[in-house]
């Protein structure tokens, strides 16, 4: 059977996400519909690179991934449930500080992230010097500088998408400091006791979300044998 990798595009609003989508998939081959049961638009399309086929899914633009906003929940559920082979996180290089927040949330989700450092020209105009290699090392994921409006960096982006799709997940872990890490560890320990639950979701992510009191995460542990224990731990 021919392999088709699923690639999700995500990013804050106004970072040039749709420009990148259009660069990767020509307009004629785009398919626009709605997310099931939602009025939020869902855009999909296919492209080929080096003989491999990719299905590209445009996720709603969002600043974070809580269960409170429909857009954010759609994006997050897609990553958790559908487990795309690659998640391309488009970062506005000229607003890198705010944009990296979403990147960290994606890493928590243990998604196979590729960072497209877009609007690189505007960042340079602002006088930003970004050490791409260092940034990539710190985050633990590949980083590709792009200027989507001028189609710069698109071939490199496709190369990296292909590479990441074919390699094993790296699961880089961001250290949140002793106290939080301890809390995450003790919750993770309880989650691991329910093998089915631990197999279904990234354990560390579920622990973090439970700690935050996230509605969606509480929904997911419903009916688990360790539900009561978890609820007690976060009470």
């Amino acid at each position: 059977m021919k392999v088709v990798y699923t690639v999700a595009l995500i990013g804050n609003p106004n970072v040039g996400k749709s420009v990148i989508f259009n660069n990767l998939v020509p307009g004629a081959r785009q398919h626009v519909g709605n997310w099931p049961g939602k009025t939020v638009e869902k855009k999909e399309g296919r492209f080929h690179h080096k003989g491999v086929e990719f299905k590209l899914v445009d996720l709603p633009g969002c600043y974070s991934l809580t269960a409170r906003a429909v857009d954010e929940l759609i994006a997050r559920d897609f990553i958790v449930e559908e487990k795309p082979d690659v998640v391309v996180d488009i970062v506005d290089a000229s607003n890198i500080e705010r944009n990296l927040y979403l990147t960290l949330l994606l890493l928590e989700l243990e998604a196979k992230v590729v960072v497209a450092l877009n609007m690189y020209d505007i960042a340079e105009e602002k006088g930003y010097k970004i050490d791409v290699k260092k940034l990539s090392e710190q985050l633990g994921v590949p980083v590709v500088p792009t200027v989507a409006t001028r189609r710069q960096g698109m071939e490199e982006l496709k190369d990296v998408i292909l590479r990441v799709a074919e390699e094993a997940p790296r699961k880089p872990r961001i250290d949140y400091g002793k106290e939080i890490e301890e809390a995450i560890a003790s919750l993770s320990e309880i989650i691991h006791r329910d093998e089915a639950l631990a197999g279904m979701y990234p354990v560390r992510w579920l622990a973090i979300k439970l700690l935050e009191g996230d509605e969606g995460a509480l929904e997911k542990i419903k009916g688990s044998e360790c539900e009561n224990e978890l609820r007690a731990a976060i009470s």
Partner: protein
Amino acid sequence: MSVKRRLGGDPEIILAERRYEVISEILRAALVKGAKKWTMTDMLDKVFLHKVLGIPVFIVLMWATFQFTFVVSAPFMSIIEVVIGWIGGLFEAIPNEVLRSFFVDGIFGGLGFVMVFVAPIFFMFFALSILEDSGYLARAAFVMDRLMFKLGLHGRSFIPMLLGFGCNLPAIMATRSIEGEKDRLITILVNPLMSCSARLPVYVLVAGAFWGSTMYAGTAIWGMYLLGIVLAILMALLFRRTILKGEPAPFIMELPLYKVPTFHGSVIHMWERGVVFLKKAGTYLLAGAIILWFLSSFPWGAEQSYTYMLGHVLEPVFRPLGFDWRLSASLIFAFMAKEIVVEALGVIYAMAGETAIGAALAASITPVSGLAFMAFVLIYVPCLATIGVIKQETGSWKWVGVTVLYELILAYIVGLMIVGVGSAMGFS
């Protein structure tokens, strides 16, 4: 002890803070914020956001906007007038006298006369669209907000205020983005002072009648918009110091990059806004024309009509301002929509067999009273739709009452001041 309690604090907030700390650590290693390059945006902002020059630049650009509106729309107004006059002329052939008067004096004299002002309304929206699409209007709001903030007012009210140039309705609804309840209330109460496009036909008619051939017409119109802004700020200060005391919230504003506006984009913006006037013409103003024609023809003809009687009853009230009975009557009807001032004058003059309304107007009142009339129309009572939205957004008739009352008093005082200063300077 539960895991959560051991953390001490809301884990959601602690985690968010930690994430930002992590980002700072990462960027400390990977990002150098070097010397900023000098961009076009910086250069333009140096001028447009300048501490001293910012406001004069805004005022000059506004002057250019209204000068453009008046001068460019003039030939188009003549064309529309000729076309409507020609079609109206066809109805002169109706044998029945009442029916003929209904069409010729009511529909074409009233509604047809207002339609002439489609031209200035569209050109004003075109000019405003260019200012907005270029990114300048956001700067104007910023400059004005900075001033308001220094005066102790809310520093994020000016976007809703600028929206008021189009229509006060969406402008008042846009105040929902203002956080403090008192700040929001003040912005709502003074918003009707921002001169909406419905008042433009009145200005164009009066200014055109007196100063049509000179630069002063555009300048007088500009003066009305400026007067509206100044009064809005003064009234906001008054409210802040009296019934709505409080401290303003600090303000932060994200400014868009400058762009060269496209002709296509500005035309679309102009159309979207201008079409509201056309819709109004088909509803409110059509109904207005019918009612006005009825009131101006019955019970016993134009010289003994309801409008005539109403105008004469009110004339003494407005005598100090120099308004004649026609202007006095038109003000009463215009609480529905301010364009109706123009429509009413159209019907009243048409009933009297007068077609050159501008000239007739200039013959019946003094230029100073004309200016006072423009200011009065600017300030006195919000239109019916605006009253509705003030009630809806403040949730009480009390604030509607406050708005109507202060505006009536203010309109009269400003009118008197214009007449007083005008006479003292030797104009009569």
